[in-house]
Each structure stands twice: as C-alpha cells, then as structure tokens.
C-alpha cells in the first residue's frame, strides 16, 4: 500500500529533478524582456532614392511596420518594440545580443526572385585577355558590379550619369536572358554581383554554393521574371531528406500564370531561358536552380529545396508569407545610410527586476506562513507542490526562451507572483473538501479518498476554462497578450499536474501516518472532538 503512494511521489520528484538537470545542462536560461535587460535595435531609414512622398510614403511605412511585426511574431513570442519615428522604423528586440541575428529577423531586403539561368560559369572569374570589362583599378577595389551602368562597365554601353539614379534606363530592354548587354565571354571575367547592384530588372552573376557553403559554380542569371509578390503563402517542412519551402502561388495572371509563363519558356528552351533552368533567388542567394521538366504547374505544387536547415527554411517561409517590405531601406550595416543596428539598454533595468524578485520572495514567505498557520502539515505539502510546479514553470520558460524567444518582462514577473496565489487555490479547494468530510464524520483515511475526486472535478473544469481562454488568446493575438496567454495556459496545465500527481499521493501518504491519525490537529483538519461537538 505504501508503495502505491510513494511511487508517484518519488516518480514526480525524479521527473522534475531530471527536467531541471536537463534544463541546466542544456544551458537554457530565461531571456529577459526589453524593459529588464535591453536588446538589439535596428533603425531603418528609407533609402535616399525613394520617390514616394506624402501619404504614399506614410502608407508604405505603416505597411512596413506591420510586415516587420508579423515577421517577428512569426518567429516566436518575443515582445518586440516596433515604432515609427517620423520616417524611420525602430525595431527593438529583447535579448538579441547578436546584432546579425537582429538584422536577419528584421530581414529588410528579402525578396524572392525567379530568374532564368543564362549560362553556367566556373566558380572564379576567368581573366580573358584584353577584356575591357576589367578596368585598371576596378579589380583592386574588391567586388564590383556587373551592371552596364557600373563604373567598370565599358563607357559606350550606357550614359555616364550617376549609376544609382537610372539603372533601368542604362540596361537594354529585354526579357529574361534576351539582350543582356554583354556576351557570355564577357561574363566569364566579371565578378559576382554585390548586393547593392542586385536589381530585379538587371541580369546578375551569383555563386551557387554546395552544402558546405563553398561556391562550385557561378550562374549568369537573366532579368527577374516574377517575384515573391506572386505568392499567396508559404510553408516550411521536412520533406524527404531535407528541409524545403513550399510556396503556394496566387491564382490568376498576377500569380501562377506568371510562373507558368516562365516555366514554359524554360521547358521549351526559348531564348529568354535557353539553359532550361529557373533559379530561385532569395536576397541575392541562389536557393536552387532546378531544371524545368514540365511546362505547367499547379499553384501549390512547387517545392523550393536548397541547403536549408530548419531555421533557414522556416525564416524563408516566413519572409515569403508576409511579403517583402514595400519600401527600400538603407543598409543598417552601412554607416553612411541613416539605418543602423546597435545594442540598447533596458528601459527599466536591474533595479525594477530586483524589486520584483524581492517582493515576490517576501510574498512567497508570507503565503507560506499563512498556509502553515492555517493548514499545518497540509500547508507544507501545498508549498512543496508550489515548489514543484514553480520549478516546472521555470524549466518551461527557459525552454521557451531558447526555442521561441519568449522574453520575461516585468509584467511577466508580476504575473508569476500573482500565480503563486492562484496555483495554491487547487490545494485550498481540496483541503476545504477534506475538512468538510471529516466534520461530517468520516475518518481521515476515508475522507482523503472521497474528497479528492470531488475537489479535482471542480479544479479540472475551472482550469479547463482557463486553458480554453488561453488557447484562444494565444492563437488570435500578437505581442504581449500572446505572452500572457502562454503563461496562463502553462500555469493551468502545471496546476492540474501538480494537484493530481503530487498533492493527491502526498495527502494520501499523510493520511496513512499513525502520527497524524492520532493528532489530527497537525494536519489543520478538525479534531474528533470538534466534529462531535455539533
């Protein structure tokens, strides 16, 4: 009999201890929110050559804020602070010490482009003797553009005016690989296109990377035939042997028709796509360049596979799903642009956190005193149960911090403090049932068995309501409300688990002790005399 009761108690202690050990061993730590610890900040300022003004600019900025928020929310439950300050967008992310990561998340230039492959080039530029495309000093200045309008381009190919202003005008008209403005031989000697010169309407040369990230080919790609704007949504999943992204195109001529036109051209090896491969380029990186084997696709049949790991596949799907920003912003890593990335301090800081933690501990002590005064040994059991669910909550929060970038804000700390009281409620409900049964003439042992199912039913249905509410709020909201819903749901589940698997056997165990049966006052329950008095 004793074994029946001790087994679950020891079991839950081992499980909780094991999880705690795992959490510590895995180095999971709780991420603190922007208000407590600060984070990384990315400031985005529209690129200087933006032509939008007035209301159009206003709308584009608002839309950008919305897209960035969706992206950040899609990554997890971090509570970002995203504001528009006049014409700038300021994005603050909690705990993102790695500024590079912050940039990736904000993903400011990500646009998916489908470009036909015009030629396959060796991995390094080949010097063709007397090639006019390599200027005297151009090579020494590092990577330069491929654009005819670039300073390294032969002067006769386009007007000499400022390159950035009128790229389009400088490029010969054509679709895909038609009329590139230079020959394939020229391309052999040209370096890879740098990000600044990667413009949708111009041909580019980009490296194709193997699984280790080393270039093994370079592809000369034609003009963009369609962009991510033709997409309706995208998902990432593990298919076959690798992570892939599954885009779904919009129906109609702005969507799948564009894609099928490109696919058809490649399938038939038309001049605009003479190699027959259609490259999928995201942010200047060739994700894949599959050969088109059929001229017609259904809109939800396309798979983008590349060297994706899970994070990159999910990030890519996210970017595709929420679209690219309607505005071009200056590059935050370029000091001359208005945009930048840097670390910021907490808005409240350590003092507030300390105050919250100390207040929480004092509160916990007061509650422990009260529970002991009122329920004696049962109160001690209740506090142990609180310790167990508290430990579990800590393990969960730190795990969520690692995987879903959940950040604990001061509001979250206070929420935890409030949950001290509410999670004791289940115990109070049970103990009051016990008291009532004993007063009604039951022995301690039988009351323990009879009262639990009744009390647990109450606790279960009430917690289920909280859980339903939490789920609804989690799915339908964003930002801090979502973080709240997550905590509410977790607390409800842990409360049920701790009550069923810990409090039930512990109270049963207490009920079996001779010590308690002889001295009922130790359990804070009515004594025989008081029961008989009535």
């Amino acid at each position, binding site marked *: 009999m004793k074994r029946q009761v001790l087994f679950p108690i020891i079991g839950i202690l081992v499980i909780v201890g094991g999880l705690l050990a795992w959490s510590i061993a895995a180095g999971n730590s709780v991420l603190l929110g922007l208000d407590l610890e600060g984070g990384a900040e990315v400031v985005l300022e529209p690129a200087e050559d933006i032509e939008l003004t007035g209301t159009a600019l206003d709308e584009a900025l608002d839309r950008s804020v919305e897209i960035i928020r969706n992206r950040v929310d899609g990554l997890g439950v971090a509570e970002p602070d995203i504001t528009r300050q006049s014409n700038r967008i300021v994005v603050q992310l909690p705990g993102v010490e790695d500024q590079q990561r912050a940039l990736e998340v904000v993903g400011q230039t990500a646009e998916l482009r489908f470009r036909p492959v015009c030629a396959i080039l060796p991995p390094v530029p080949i010097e063709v003797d007397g090639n006019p495309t390599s200027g005297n000093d151009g090579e020494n200045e590092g990577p330069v553009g491929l654009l005819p309008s670039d300073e390294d381009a032969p002067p006769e190919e386009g007007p000499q005016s400022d390159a950035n202003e009128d790229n389009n005008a400088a490029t010969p008209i054509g679709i895909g690989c038609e009329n590139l403005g230079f020959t394939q031989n020229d391309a052999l000697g040209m370096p890879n296109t740098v990000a600044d010169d990667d413009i949708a309407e111009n041909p580019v040369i980009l490296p194709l990377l193997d699984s280790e990230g080393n270039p093994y080919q370079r592809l000369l790609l034609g003009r963009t035939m369609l962009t991510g704007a033709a997409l309706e949504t995208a998902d990432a999943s593990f298919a076959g042997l690798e992570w892939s992204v599954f885009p779904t195109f919009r129906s109609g001529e702005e969507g799948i028709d564009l894609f099928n036109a490109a696919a058809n051209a490649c399938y038939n090896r038309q001049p605009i796509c003479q190699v027959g491969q259609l490259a999928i380029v995201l942010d200047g990186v060739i994700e894949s360049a599959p050969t088109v084997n059929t001229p017609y696709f259904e809109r939800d049949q396309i798979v983008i596979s590349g060297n994706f790991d899970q994070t990159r596949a999910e990030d890519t799907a996210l970017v595709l799903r929420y679209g690219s920003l309607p505005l071009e912003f200056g590059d935050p890593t370029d000091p001359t642009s208005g945009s930048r990335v840097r670390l910021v301090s907490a808005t409240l800081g350590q003092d507030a956190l300390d105050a919250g933690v100390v*207040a929480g501990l004092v509160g916990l002590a007061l509650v422990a005193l009260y529970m002991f005064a009122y329920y004696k040994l049962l109160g001690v059991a209740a506090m142990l149960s609180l310790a167990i669910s508290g430990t579990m909550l800590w393990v969960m929060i730190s795990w969520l911090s690692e995987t879903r970038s959940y950040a604990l804000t001061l509001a979250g700390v206070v929420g935890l403090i409030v949950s001290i*009281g509410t999670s004791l409620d289940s115990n109070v409900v049970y103990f009051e049932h016990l008291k009532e049964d004993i007063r009604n003439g039951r022995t301690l042992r039988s009351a323990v068995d009879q009262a*639990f199912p009744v009390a647990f039913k109450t606790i279960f*249905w009430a917690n289920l309501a909280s859980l339903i509410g939490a789920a609804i709020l989690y799915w339908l909201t964003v930002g801090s409300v979502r973080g709240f819903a997550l905590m509410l749901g977790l607390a409800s589940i842990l409360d049920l688990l701790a009550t069923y698997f810990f409090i039930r056997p512990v109270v049963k165990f207490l009920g079996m002790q001779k010590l308690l049966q002889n001295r009922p006052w130790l359990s804070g329950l009515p004594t025989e005399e008081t029961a008989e008095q009535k």
Partner: protein
Amino acid sequence: MTLLKRMYRNETEVPFSKLWKSITLCSLAVLILSVGGIAFRGLNLGLEFEGGGAWEVPAENIEAEEVRDALRPLGLADARIQTGGGVLRVRTELSKVTQTALDSGEESDPIVAQVTTILAQITGQEETAVSVSTAGPSWGEEITNKAINALIVFFIVIALYITIRLRWEMAVGALVAVAHDIVITVGIYAIFQFEVTPPTVIAFLTIMGYSLYDTLVVFDKVRDNEHLLSNAKLSYTEVVEKALNQVFMRSVNTSITSILPVVSVLVVGSGIMGAVTLREFALALLIGLIIGTFSSLFIAAPCATVLRNKFGDEDSDKRSYRLSEAVRRRKKSSIPTASTPSNPAIPPRPRKNKRR
C-alpha cells in the same frame, strides 16, 4: 462560537441572499462611477498606444537614472530612457497637437524645447546635436483590434462552455461578474488617471482570468448542491446560499494567498525598494483580485439565481441532477479505490448537516 472559529470550521451561516440587494446597489453605484470616469475623463493612454516624442543625443557613460532625475521637474519621470551604442534615447508622451506640430516641423511646443535643453545640458552637447522626432505607437491599432476580436471569441466560447458544463444562467452570471470586475478596474485607472501601458492591459487580462476561475469554482459548488432541491426541498436561493457558505472559507483563503504577494509587490517592491513602475500595476491587480473574489459571491451568484428563479423549470433541475450524479459515478469508478472500502451504508457525497 466566535465568527472566526465558525469560519475556520466552514460553519458560517452568512445570509448571502439578504445581502445581495444592498451589495448589488453598492456595486451598481461603483459601476456607474467607473463608467462615468471612463466616459468623461477617458483613459490616460501611454506612449505605447498614443505615440509621443523621441529624442536622440550622442552620449557616452550616462546613467538612465541621471536623465530621469533631470526630467522629473517637467513631470516626465516616466519617460522611456535607453542608453547604448553611444546614444541616449528618450521617448515620452506628447499630446496629439504637439505631435502634429513636430511632424510638420513647425515651431515646437515649449515642453519639447525644454526637454531638448535638459538633454543637451546633461550630455554636454550643443542643442543642435539633439535630434527630435515623433514616435509612433508600438502597440498599434492592429494589435488592439486583434486583441478585441480574440476577447469576443473568448467570451462566446466561455459562455458556451459554462452553458454546456453548468447552466446558461451561470454563464450569464459569470460573464456579468467578469465584466463588472474589468469595468471597475479600468474605471479606477480612468478616475485616477493612472497611465495605461501594455503591462496594465496584461493586468486587466490577469484579473479577467482570475475572476472567471473563481466564479467557476463557486458555481461548481452550487451545482454539486443542486440535489438538495429535491432531496431537502430547499428553494434554489437557499441551495445557492448554502453553497456560498460552504465555499466561503475557500474564497477567503484563496484571496489571501493571491493578495499577499501582490501586497508585497506594492509595499516592498514599490514602497521600500522604490520601483515606481510597479506601483500602479500592483494597485490595479490588488483591487482586481479583491473584486474578483467578491464578485463571484455577490454578483455572479445572485445574477444566476435571479435568472434561474425567473426562467428555470423543475425538469431541468432533475435532469441536471441526474447528469451530475452520472458524472460523479463515472469519475469514482475511474479512480482506484483505496485501502479502506467505504461503507456502502453511508452514501458518499450528500451531506448530513440538516441543522437548518
């Protein structure tokens, strides 16, 4: 027996139904006051909702507290101050008028100029080095709309849940109680013009969840006692009153264990340790938690009782009684019976106290 001792032994006989009328009137008065406060004074929405001004100054080695103290005379001690990257950033509330003026680059408001001067002084920079712009809301309308939609779905689903699980009168009672608690807490924010920040919204949601949970525990007890309708020939009001007396001590204990930590945040955290940001937040929670417990006993219960007395029928009582018995029997069979087999002569649940 003293009252305390009776409370300890769950033998209180508080005539809840007699208190309902006067307490409902009091509640109604507070509600009207709250609604009036919300309607006439409005909420003091923080920077996160309304936007404000943003200042940036190049500054090395400056403490946020230093800046906060300097801004205190202007009444801007609650500004969001951040350092890092060699730049001091200050964001604070500004009126819409000032924001519009600032946006169109017009002659700025005196308060804007004052902040600029102070920031220039404290960092030892020229005033021209201080850049000023408007800061848009970080909690935009989009987030609010999503939250409101979610809340509407939440209330509908919870109402259905309580209707299926308990009765529709109780669903109405529970939602009225939750609305009552939220309106009063929000009303306090309006009347005292406390600043509403995103954490405040979370506090409101916490109160909502707590109030709902508490009401469900109370209603569950009422439901457990419904067999007394036929067994002991009690009226519905008497049944509810009995249930309320039975859960009374549980309500008191739960309130105490929930409120003690919040009081600690208020007294220790914000009082002694001076974390001002915690004060209004903890105050809202404290009031909300007290009202949350109170409303289960004095708002939700009478509401459900009045509705039940008006619209309920005998049939549904018997039906629901049979249902709850069936649930109980099923539950019992699923739980392994313990060493002491209960005496079949003693029926397990119905209470024997027929003292009244």
